[in-house]
Structure formats: structure tokens, C-alpha cells
């Protein structure tokens, strides 16, 4: 068989690889063959019959989405017969379609609408009564309007093949055939909304978005989801400073169209009524709203006073703030306040991994690697709960490339369904279990190892030593919790490591020490909630908090600055695989400022010069000063993702593994942010106990 096949489509010579389907061969040369049920990456259906084309020497019209090309084939995609067939299909489709476009969410971006305009007839010849079924609500976020459904089965397939959930199926037959949820009248699933997103018509609609707006009334802002560490691009639909929906229909970003419930729906914390919208200062023991200038001068005065007398500062940074903010914060602490008492909630042992990989290149996996590498080993993490995009990539890798998957987890995980070998290992027993896979792993051509927070300190070194001993290329992912956990670490939110893991001469106090120190004078918390879990040691400390909500930590504050969320600011974040991506402000919430602006104003008020507080300027500085971050600006600026180059040198200093602990969020929780997302709380309350028996 030759490497290429030559054929003719609409009189144009086309060359494509053997096995290419006609529909894709045509796409290569810019010829559109319409289809509903054909969908890249999902199983073939040939159900909608929209892609019928004429192929010379075959008596019947052929289905372009399932027929592979052949040498010398002559295809006509726009002959009178084909046009008539398409017109007939659209006509059939519309017979029971309600044509309620003026009130349908999908109106304006509906594939059926587009197809009807392009290929359909102007008038309907259907005079009979349409089949009607009442609308159903399947979950807090999923609604189904059966009459609008054209049964392309995209939702069924994405749920089964893409998500591994298999929560949707088909019931009844003939014209009464309907998509149905897995629990009779409701869904028990990931509530990811992939089914809604992939629906070409308005049959599956989103509980958040339905009947709120028309698509063209929003502006669409592509930014990075602020919840977990996977760094999915989410395109926010914003109208009048209000986020109305999140999706990623343009397939941009590392995640393509994938989003879980958090990226798609959990933006709603932004509009929570509990959002702080004014600075507050504690007066006579009570927090009272004050002006920005009063709050800033109160803090600046206190900072200067403590700095002057050589008092003790403690600074805790954020897992959600941008790289620029974290960089600026540590610079503020180190240069402006003269302290190395700075840390953040560490959720994975990245420094040890980097140290262990010292001297190796290409040892850190990208999210794309999870889709392309031939074997994957998951250690101590329930990916589909905590890293749903990484899980999606691995699942897609298995489906499309037959990747070999291995799991070593403390309980059952979804990846087991297609794993070559899965071992249930109690905490502490992970490495022994990994060792038992040695022979199988050795036989693989290459491997990606993902490991959770249970693997820390020496265990990381042992894991890397194990990887080295396999004699195959191994890449690693150290799993981290939140949207910029990686950036916080890279930017030097650590008492002993500066930006780019440069050692600090005199290490400061670590996270637990800051909180425990009885003689602390100032605690400055930027976008974190340490007092949720830890007791605070210092009674006299002056506590400054930059926060969106009145969290446990904010309640203890002497001054609170209302902070903007990630969706309200510009900058960059780095995901779990070290890929730097751009945050783009979609809206403004009245009364808030970004953490960067707050810090900038504070530096100005204090009269310390730590540089301009513009995110572009700081990113320039980061690119120059933080090892690995000299990424091509053009890619990041245009919304692409670039992996930072690994430090590739020893990382000095002890890591203190006991400080490393994942928050253990699930699909439906997201630290403090999650509490203020109505959607996340509503699905937790949804009927059923799907997750209670699945969580390891």
C-alpha cells in the first residue's frame, strides 16, 4: 500500500493518507461536507446522513464520514443529487423540530440553523402534527428539551467515550427515540456539561445559561480556569460585567473543548452576594467598611512601623494569584519588608522532583504528552476527581492510541476501567506497588508518571530512581492542587527558595512556623485561607488580608482589601505541567482591585520602590529573572501555552515533606472558592450517592 492516495473531490486533485475519510480529505482542501453526527475523536455513527456524497461508479450516495478514500476515487460533494439529498435530510430533521429559534439558547450558534440556511429549503412541506415532549431537568446544570434533539448521539458518545461516565443513553424507538439520563429522570455524573457543549442544537441546555441571553450579546473572553491546576482555557461569555457562561467551543488552549464542571460553571463565585466590595478596617474590634485610601494608609503605616523596629513579618501567598502577583509579593516581602518569612500552601513536592531530575532534559511531561505517550502510570491520585483534564487526556490517549495505563492508588479510580494493571496500595505502600510493576513497565517504549501528594521527599527521589532504572524515556508530573500552585512555587513563595528556586542565604519561617510564631507582628495573607485549618499563634499580630470573601482568615483580619478574582485580571498562570498561559480580564467587579494593584498601591503608600505594578512589566522581569520562564512572548500573548523549561540544576535546601498536603478537593469542591459557587454546592446536593462510594 502506498503512503498516499490520490483522489478527486469536486474536480480538485486531493492527496491524503490511506484510511482518511472522505469528509476529512475534503476538509483538507477547504471543501465542507456538512454533518451532525460526525465528530472528530468520537466513534463513527453515520446516523445523520447529511454527509452523503456522490462517488463515481457507485450506484448509491455514499456516507462521507465513514467511507475511507481510495485511489482514483472521484467524489462530488455539490452535485444536484447531493444538494437534493441534503435538502431532503434537513427537511426530515425539521419535521419534528420545534423551530423555536427565537427563544432557543442555541439560536445564532446552532448548527441546525446554519445547515438549514445553507442547505435547507425555504419552506416547510410538513403539515402534520409534530411530536412534542415536555422539557426535563436532569440535574442542576443539565436540562433536556427532547423535541429539539436531532439524535446525533454526540452527547452519548462524549459522555461515554470522552468522560468515561456513560451517563447518557437512548430510549424508545423511531420518532419517539430520545436521549435519556442514567438514573431514570436525573443524571448522576460528573456534571461536566460536555454534553451540553457538544450538542449541535438547543436540546441540551445549561442550567446556568438558559434563557439568559443571545450569544451575540456577549463578548467572549478566553482566559484560564481558576480552579484546579490543569490550566484549562475557558471562554467566558460576558455581558454587562456579568459572566453568563463558560465554555470552550473554539477548541483553543491545551484542553480543546474539554471543561469540567468547574471551568464551565463554577465561575459564579464571582457574582456571589458575599463578595467583598469595600476595604475594611477593624475598629473597636469590629470590621468596618472604609475608603481605599484609609485602608492603604493604615496598612502602610503599620508595615513601616514594624519594619522600622525590626519586627517580625509573615507573608502567605496564593495558589490562585497570577505569576506576576506572586513574583511581586515575594519581591515586596524580600525587598520591601526585608523578610524571607514567606510561603504558600504547598500541595505537591515539586522542588524535590526538580532536584531529582537535575541534569535531565525533557523529563517533565506536558498535558499533550498525556495524550501522546505510549504508557502512563498514575500514582496515588484519583485523577478524574482532582485532575479531570489530565484524566480526559489519558482516556483519549487510551481510546485513540491504545495507551497502556497503570494505576497505583489507595482506592478504586476511573482509570482502572482501561488500565493494563491497577493496584490498590495503602498509603506508604505505593512505591512497593510501583516496584511490582517493574517488568511490565520495562517493556514499555516510554512512560509518563503522575504522582500525588503522598509521594514526597525521599519517596520522590526513589520514584525517579525507579524511573531511571527502567531504561526507557520517563517523564513526570508532580500533581498540584490549584490554578497557580505551580507558579507560586516557581515564583519563590518559599522561605528558602527565591524565584526560579534560587537558594536564599538566610531562610525565613515556613508556613507552619509563621502561623505558630507567638511573636509575629504582621501576618499578610494574599489570596489564601490558612486559618481554615491551622490555629494562629500570635495574638497581637496585625493581620492584613487580600481576599474575595470573608473567609476564616479574613475574619481575623485587621485590614481587608477586596481582591479581584482571576477572571477580573490580566497576567499569566502556570499549570501543573509547567505550561504558562495568559489570564485575560473579562469583567470588573465594583469595589475590587487586583492583588497586584493592591500591592502596588501599598508600595507607593509605603514609599518603597519595587518596580512598576503593571503585569506586562513584571512578566518581562519574570522572563528575565526566573529560570525557565524565558518563554516566547508571542505565544503566551496570543493565548497559547508554553512549557517552562525545567530548572535543570540542584534545588538547594530542605523541603520539609510534612508541609506538603493536597487539600483533597473533588470534582465538586474547590477550596474556599468552591464554597461560594452556587453551582458546585448545588450538584453536591443533587440526588444520588455516586461519589460517596467512588472516592478512594
Amino acid at each position, binding site marked *: 500500500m502506498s503512503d498516499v492516495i490520490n483522489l478527486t473531490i469536486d474536480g480538485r486533485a486531493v492527496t491524503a493518507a490511506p484510511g482518511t475519510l472522505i469528509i476529512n480529505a475534503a476538509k483538507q482542501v477547504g471543501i465542507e461536507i456538512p454533518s451532525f453526527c460526525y465528530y472528530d475523536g468520537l466513534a463513527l455513527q453515520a446516523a445523520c446522513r447529511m454527509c452523503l456524497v456522490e462517488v463515481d461508479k457507485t450506484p448509491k*450516495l455514499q456516507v462521507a464520514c465513514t467511507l475511507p478514500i481510495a485511489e482514483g476515487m472521484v467524489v462530488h460533494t455539490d452535485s444536484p443529487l447531493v444538494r437534493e439529498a441534503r435538502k431532503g*435530510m434537513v427537511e*426530515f430533521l425539521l419535521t419534528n423540530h420545534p423551530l423555536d429559534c427565537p427563544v432557543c439558547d442555541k439560536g445564532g450558534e446552532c448548527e441546525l440553523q446554519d445547515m438549514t440556511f445553507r442547505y435547507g429549503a425555504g419552506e416547510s412541506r410538513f403539515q402534520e402534527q409534530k411530536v412534542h415532549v415536555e422539557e426535563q431537568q436532569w440535574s442542576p446544570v443539565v436540562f433536556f428539551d427532547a423535541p429539539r434533539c436531532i439524535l446525533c448521539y454526540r452527547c452519548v458518545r462524549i459522555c461515554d467515550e470522552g468522560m468515561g461516565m456513560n451517563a447518557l443513553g437512548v430510549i424508545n424507538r423511531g420518532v419517539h427515540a430520545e436521549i435519556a439520563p442514567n438514573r431514570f429522570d436525573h443524571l448522576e455524573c460528573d456534571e461536566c456539561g460536555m454534553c451540553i457543549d457538544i450538542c449541535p442544537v438547543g436540546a441540551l441546555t445549561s442550567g446556568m445559561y438558559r434563557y439568559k441571553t443571545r450569544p451575540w450579546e456577549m463578548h467572549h473572553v478566553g482566559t484560564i480556569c481558576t480552579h484546579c491546576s490543569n490550566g484549562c482555557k475557558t471562554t467566558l461569555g460576558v455581558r454587562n460585567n456579568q459572566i453568563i457562561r463558560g465554555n470552550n467551543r473554539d477548541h483553543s488552549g491545551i484542553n480543546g473543548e474539554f471543561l469540567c464542571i468547574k471551568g464551565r460553571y463554577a465561575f459564579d463565585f464571582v457574582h456571589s452576594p458575599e463578595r467583598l466590595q469595600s476595604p475594611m478596617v477593624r475598629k473597636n474590634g469590629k470590621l468596618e467598611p472604609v475608603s481605599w485610601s484609609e485602608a492603604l494608609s493604615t496598612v502602610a503605616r503599620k508595615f513601616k512601623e514594624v519594619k522600622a523596629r525590626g519586627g517580625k513579618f509573615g507573608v502567605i501567598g496564593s495558589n490562585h494569584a497570577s505569576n506576576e502577583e506572586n513574583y511581586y509579593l515575594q519581591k515586596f516581602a524580600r525587598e520591601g519588608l526585608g523578610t524571607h518569612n514567606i510561603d504558600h500552601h504547598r500541595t505537591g513536592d515539586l522542588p524535590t522532583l526538580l532536584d531529582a531530575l537535575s541534569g535531565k532534559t525533557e523529563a517533565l511531561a506536558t498535558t499533550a504528552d498525556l495524550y501522546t505517550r505510549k504508557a502512563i502510570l498514575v500514582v496515588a491520585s484519583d485523577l478524574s476527581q482532582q485532575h479531570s483534564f489530565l484524566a480526559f487526556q489519558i482516556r483519549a490517549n487510551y481510546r485513540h492510541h491504545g495507551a497502556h495505563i497503570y494505576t497505583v492508588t489507595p482506592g478504586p479510580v476511573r482509570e482502572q476501567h482501561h488500565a493494563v494493571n491497577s493496584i490498590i496500595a495503602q498509603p506508604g505502600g505505593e512505591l512497593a506497588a510501583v516496584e511490582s510493576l517493574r517488568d511490565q513497565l520495562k517493556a514499555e517504549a516510554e512512560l509518563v508518571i503522575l504522582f500525588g501528594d503522598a509521594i514526597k521527599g525521599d519517596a520522590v527521589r526513589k520514584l525517579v530512581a525507579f524511573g531511571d532504572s527502567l531504561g526507557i524515556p520517563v517523564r513526570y508530573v508532580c500533581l498540584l492542587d490549584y490554578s497557580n500552585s505551580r507558579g507560586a512555587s516557581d515564583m519563590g513563595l518559599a522561605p528558602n527558595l527565591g524565584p526560579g528556586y534560587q537558594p536564599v542565604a538566610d531562610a525565613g519561617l515556613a508556613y507552619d512556623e509563621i502561623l505558630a510564631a507567638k511573636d509575629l507582628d504582621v501576618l499578610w495573607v494574599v489570596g489564601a485561607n490558612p486559618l481554615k485549618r491551622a490555629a494562629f499563634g500570635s495574638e497581637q499580630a496585625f493581620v492584613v488580608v487580600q481576599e474575595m470573601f470573608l473567609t476564616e482568615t479574613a475574619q481575623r483580619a485587621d485590614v481587608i482589601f477586596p481582591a479581584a478574582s482571576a477572571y477580573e485580571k490580566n497576567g499569566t498562570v502556570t499549570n501543573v505541567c509547567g505550561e504558562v498561559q495568559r489570564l485575560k480580564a473579562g469583567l470588573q467587579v465594583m469595589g475590587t482591585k487586583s492583588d497586584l494593584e493592591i500591592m502596588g498601591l501599598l508600595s507607593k503608600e509605603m514609599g518603597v520602590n519595587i518596580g512598576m505594578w503593571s503585569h506586562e512589566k513584571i512578566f518581562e522581569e519574570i522572563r528575565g529573572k526566573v529560570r525557565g520562564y524565558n518563554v516566547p512572548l508571542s505565544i503566551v500573548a496570543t493565548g497559547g501555552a508554553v512549557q517552562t523549561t525545567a530548572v535543570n540544576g540542584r534545588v538547594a535546601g530542605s523541603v520539609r515533606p510534612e508541609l506538603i498536603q493536597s487539600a483533597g478537593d473533588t470534582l465538586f469542591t474547590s477550596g474556599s472558592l468552591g464554597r461560594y459557587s452556587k453551582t458546585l454546592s448545588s450538584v453536591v446536593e443533587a440526588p444520588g450517592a455516586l461519589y460517596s462510594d467512588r472516592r478512594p
Partner: protein
Amino acid sequence: MLYNEPSPLEVKILTKRFTLPNSQSLDTYLANDGFKAFFKAIEMSPEQIIEELKISALRGRGGAGFPTGLKWSFVPRNSPKPKYVIVNADESEPGTCKDRLLMENDPHQLIEGILIGGRLVDAHKGFIYIRGEFRYLITMMDRAIEEAYKRGYLGKNIQGTGFDFDLYTHTGAGAYECGEETALLDSIEGKRGVPRMKPPFPAVVGAWQSPTLLSNVETFSAVPFIIRDGGAAFAALGTPKNGGTRMICLSGHINKPGVYELPVGFNLLRMIYEVGGGMRNGKKLKAVVPGGSSCPLLKAEECDIPMDFDTLAKIKSMLGSGGTVVLDEDTCMVKFAHRIMKFYAHESCGWCIPCREGTTWLRKMLERFHGGGGQTGDRELIGELSKNMLGRTFCALGDAAAMPTISIVEKWPEDFEAHLNGRACPYEHASEMAMQR
């Protein structure tokens, strides 16, 4: 049990034991040439078996009429995967009622056919997929299978030949679509019965992704005769390329409806007037459904033809599954079209758009039309919609719905004319009269 008097014109090959007492028992079968073919097949090479089948000119009795020898030769006998033999007993084509008789009256003939199929492709497991409505047949078939097991004609080392074979019945839930062989496979695997994409064909990738020998009950039942008496003997009964006999299910407005085994190529008019005892009440012949409701209908003047696959294909109809329905001059063709479409709309699985939407649209139109709500242009629209379905659906069900409709629209325009302008059906009165008689 027989439901009609045999006709002297019949050539009894498959039905030869039907009239014997206890015809369904293994003893009767063994006493009348039973399992001779199986022992012969054990001695034959697979190539020889295929050769006999090819010589016999046996063509698939399920409806499509594909040469069986060729179809069975497609199953990769040396595949390392397990192979399966599956019998399509989902007999549900309107007008067809022959498979049930073969299972009721001579189940062991079917079992022997299955064993020969299993021997041919080196399969050791078989399933008889019986239509959901045939509850009693499942019981009967199970009884026969049990008997065969007890007597060593199924199971391990059958009759000391070293050949193992297990046979099971499996039932659908009553969906016409599951008679389509790939939908049947999905159903047997426990899935929703919708057709699969072809290729790959079931012969190569069938049940549980394995090579599968899949044919109709009547096809399997014909195999023992072919192996025992030779393909040539079978072929000689029919016309060239159309070997053997067919179970013709003669129904409709005739005096002696019933299932008759006739040589392939038997003249249709003789079938009606000689085998079927002529038209009921001396009425005139109006139309014939030659082989099940999916076939384009024949006008009376088209009926002087031999009933074989090729002749019917030549006049743009089909021999189909042998369900010959005879209609007299009092039949309203609009009503007939509506009745068929009601069936197809009900049975459409819903998988692809043209069949799902088209059948229901047509049903509603025909219902309205027959009820006096017909408009000028409706007849043309019915024809056009049917043509929009024809050849464009996922499986043949859409074609099955479209073909008879197109033939009715084209061949009996006057019946449609007669319903226009709010007129009541001109045949209603006549058919009431007929019922009273």
C-alpha cells in the same frame, strides 16, 4: 402442527417431515434421514462443504437473497478468535410466517443445519435469535435443544466425532429492526438493537467482534438436504442461480391461504390460482406483494412471472422473504400504504434521520389522506419523500418502507385521486360488504 392443507403442487424438501406424527421429536428426525448430513459433513473438508453450497445455488432466505455458499465462505475459518453460528429467527417481515413452522415442526433439521455451519467454520457455539413475540417457540426450541443434548447430538464430542457444539436460544424484545443482522448482533450482545456500520461484515467481525456465520432459519434448514443429497439435487429443483424450494407464505384475499413449499421459480399466477385456490369470492386480482411488505407491489398484469430472485429484480421488485400477499379489487391501496407505513414508523429504530422522521411523516400524511384530508400534490410529495429515504438510510429498513410506497404511488394514482377533495374512501363500503359475506 400444520395450519393449512398441503397442496399437491408442493415439492417437499424442508417440510417433508411436517406431516409425520411427532415430527418435532428427535426420534422422528433420526428415522427420516436425520443427522445423516452432519456425519457426512464431518467427513468433508470445509472447501467441499462450501462447494456443495455453491453448487446448490441456495440463496439467503431472509430476504436479501445473497448466495449462501459465498456468504459462508467469507467467514475466516482459521481466525484465532472464537467463531459463532447465529440463526436469524427474528421472523417479523409482515406477510412472512415460515420460520416458525420450521422450528415448530422440524427443529432438529435446523439444529443439524447449525451443526454443519459450525463444522464448516470451526465454531463451537451457536445462538438461535428468536423473535420476542414467539414465546412458545423459545420453549419448543429449548425442548428440542435439550433433547439433542441428552442424546448426544449437541455438547461435547457429538456422536463420537470429536466435534463440540453448544447451542442456545436467545430472544429479542420484539423489534423488527433486530431482524437486520447487525442489529441482531447488538441485541444478542445485550445492547440496544440498532444496526452496525458495514463493513466490516458480520462474517468477519460479528458477535463479540468475532467471525460469525449468520443466516436465516430456512437457509440453515435447507443445508442438511444439500449436504446429504448433494448441491446439484437441490439446484435442480429451482431455476438457474436460484436453487431449491421456497416456503411461500401465501396470504390475503385468496381461498386457501397457507405456507407452501414450492420450487423457486414457480409461476406467481399459478401460485394464486392453483396452490392458493384462487381469489376469494371470485374477485379480480388487483395487486400482489411478492415477498413481504418491503417489496414493491406488483400490478395484476405483472403477475405472470416465475418467482425467483432474478426475475423479480428485473421487474424492480424483490422475492424477499417469501411473504406473498394477494390483494383483490376491493383493496384501497392508500389504506394499504398507510398500514405498511404504520408498521415501519412503529418499527423504525430511530437511529438515522431519514427513516426515523420519514416513516412517521409518511404515516401521518397517509392517515390524513385516507381520512379524506388529502390535498392536490400530496401523492407526489409522498413519492418524493419516499425517494428521499430510498438508499439514503443507514440500514435497509428505510428502503423497506420506501419501496412499497413508491410502487403504490406510481402504480395506483387513481386510488389517490379518488380520495381527494374530502371524499370518503371509495373502498370502505366494498370492504364492509366483503366482511359481511
